[in-house]
């Protein structure tokens, strides 16, 4: 198992390396010249050339790429500038190592993702189970229609609408802003509530549908019939024999969704103006801050890839058939 984990992690690193290379290549194609960008309003060609040399932009692409990957592993320097391990690049627009920018924004993204995840799991799975148990009833249909509606609502629309209604019209909530949980728990909760609900609305629908179909599928399984034949109370039958196995695919998808979300809820953070990793990415894209885009892409991909590995391992832990195979 340890060996397997190591092998998966190595594979994950491989995937990240390829993603890194591809992203790097795309930036090379980008017309915006970081040196020109860094040079600003009054800039002579000589000065641009100087900056280019400092950034290593005059080197051939493979050399630049090697330097970049080397930086991630061991840190590097840009001219007189130190960029310590793990150096995901250095933003000349914010004068900050990309790593610092990412880590300073991670708490916001984690706050959003974690809270939303709790919410959507609670709402989605409950609705899914209820719908499955009351199959064909009004409850079922209403839950599934609501789920489809939630899935169909573009997130920026939900965000704008909730902000318009809850903040502008009703004034029930303040404008979301960055608040540390440790500084002001109430403010944190108030600020995060809308982003959580917005994200949860999108995902809860998906989870309700998955949970419903999995519970239904498991309810039709022979071992559920066995459980009933044993005379178990229906609650136990559902909980132990239909829900538990149904949660396996939910766990799988949850791991991946969470992994993707930790890499920044791009639109949510942008719409609410919350300085998370996603907003960092959006801003960086708007201002063509290539080192940051590259860094965020890698960072987000790392979460996805690691989530994949984690999901497989968790799966192995949860499913005795895999565990002992």
């Amino acid at each position, binding site marked *: 198992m340890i060996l*397997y984990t190591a*092998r998966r992690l190595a594979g994950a690193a491989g995937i990240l390396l390829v993603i890194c290379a591809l992203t790097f290549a795309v930036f090379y194609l980008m017309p915006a010249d970081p040196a020109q960008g860094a040079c600003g309003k009054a800039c002579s060609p000589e000065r641009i050339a100087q900056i280019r040399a400092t950034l290593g932009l005059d080197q051939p692409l493979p050399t630049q790429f090697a330097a970049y990957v080397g930086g991630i592993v061991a840190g590097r320097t840009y001219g007189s500038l130190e960029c310590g391990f793990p150096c995901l690049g250095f933003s000349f627009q914010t004068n900050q190592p990309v790593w610092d920018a990412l880590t300073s924004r991670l708490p916001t993204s984690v706050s959003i993702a974690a809270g939303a995840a709790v919410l959507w799991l609670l709402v989605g799975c409950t609705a899914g189970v209820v719908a499955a148990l009351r199959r064909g009833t009004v409850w079922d249909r209403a839950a599934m229609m609501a789920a489809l509606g939630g899935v169909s609502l573009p997130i920026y629309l939900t965000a704008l609408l909730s902000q318009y209604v809850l903040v502008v019209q009703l004034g029930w909530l303040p404008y979301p802003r960055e608040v540390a949980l440790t500084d002001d728990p109430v403010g944190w909760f108030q600020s995060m509530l809308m982003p959580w609900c917005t994200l949860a609305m999108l995902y809860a629908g998906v989870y309700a549908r998955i949970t419903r179909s999995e519970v239904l599928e498991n309810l039709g399984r022979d071992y559920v019939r066995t459980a009933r034949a044993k005379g178990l109370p229906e609650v136990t039958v559902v909980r132990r024999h239909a829900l538990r196995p149904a949660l396996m695919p939910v766990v799988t998808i949850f791991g991946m969704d969470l992994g993707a979300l930790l890499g920044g809820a791009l639109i949510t953070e942008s719409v609410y103006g919350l300085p998370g990793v996603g907003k960092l990415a959006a801003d960086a894209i708007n201002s063509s801050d290539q080192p940051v885009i590259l860094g965020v892409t890698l960072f987000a991909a790392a979460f996805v890839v690691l989530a994949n590995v984690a999901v497989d391992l968790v*799966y192995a832990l949860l499913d005795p*058939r895999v565990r002992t*195979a």
Partner: protein
Amino acid sequence: MSLLETTDLVKRYPVRHRLTRRRIGEVSAVDGVSLGVERGETLGLVGESGCGKSTVGRLLTRLDTPTSGQVRFEGRDLGPLSEDELRPVRRDLQIVFQDPFSSLNPRHTVRQLLSAPFRYQGLEPTEPVEDLLKRVGLKPEHASRYPHEFSGGQAQRIGIARALALRPKVVVCDEPVSALDVSVQAQILNLLRDLQDELGLSYVFIAHDLGAVRQVSTRVAVMYLGVVVETADRDALFGHAAHPYTHALLSAVPVPDPDLERGRERIVLRGDPPSPLNPPSGCRFRTRCPKAAEVCAAERPVLREIAPGHLVACHFPEERTP
């Protein structure tokens, strides 16, 4: 020279871990099987689940490539042939599967299914689809239907018609009646018998149902965990089984007669067949054999002829009581 024969046929499948996809071992599905089928005869192949019967069937029709050993058809080794070179051979060598529905493409009509053999062989159809249907007891107007519109028995008839379209010399029937109801089973067994009489076919009849094997076979081979433990003419095998396993097998089949069934001397074997992942050393049956001795663990018994045409792989075969 047999029409279709195998020598020392071996097939191993790698086994992978469910999660890590690492190779964690090998199933030795078939381990040194030598068989022969003569013109016009039916070789019955019996054994318990997982003993390698289907694998032999797939190897005989070259749907799988043997790990080692030979499959010869009319004296020609099929091993080194490419798919293109095999194509003409396949006209003479057909297969009927267990589950009639999964062996018929659900998206093709009966007409398409029954003209496929000619199309794939690049031949002009020699026999109209309607005639093929009639031969297996179906109506010509069935030609435009899809498989799901048939009952199991009817679908199996279509499978048989398809196998026979090219007028093969040998048909491997891999449990052709196991999925069918008893009453339908009888119809299909009768059909196979009729077709053999009419067309002079040879069959390799794979089944775990000893009664069915007895009904259609002229010779029978008994397999246990990838090896053939006994072969004999039908009557010899059912009358004078020499291998303890064959004995146990025969005695385990319940007979639909309350008096006979209750009074019968039964040999109930202990335990289950071992896993083909790591088969026992020496004689593979020794772990369940009532006669097992030390030599059985040490030495693998080879097939010996104990009477003309009666071969047994056992250190302590039953005495033949005439």
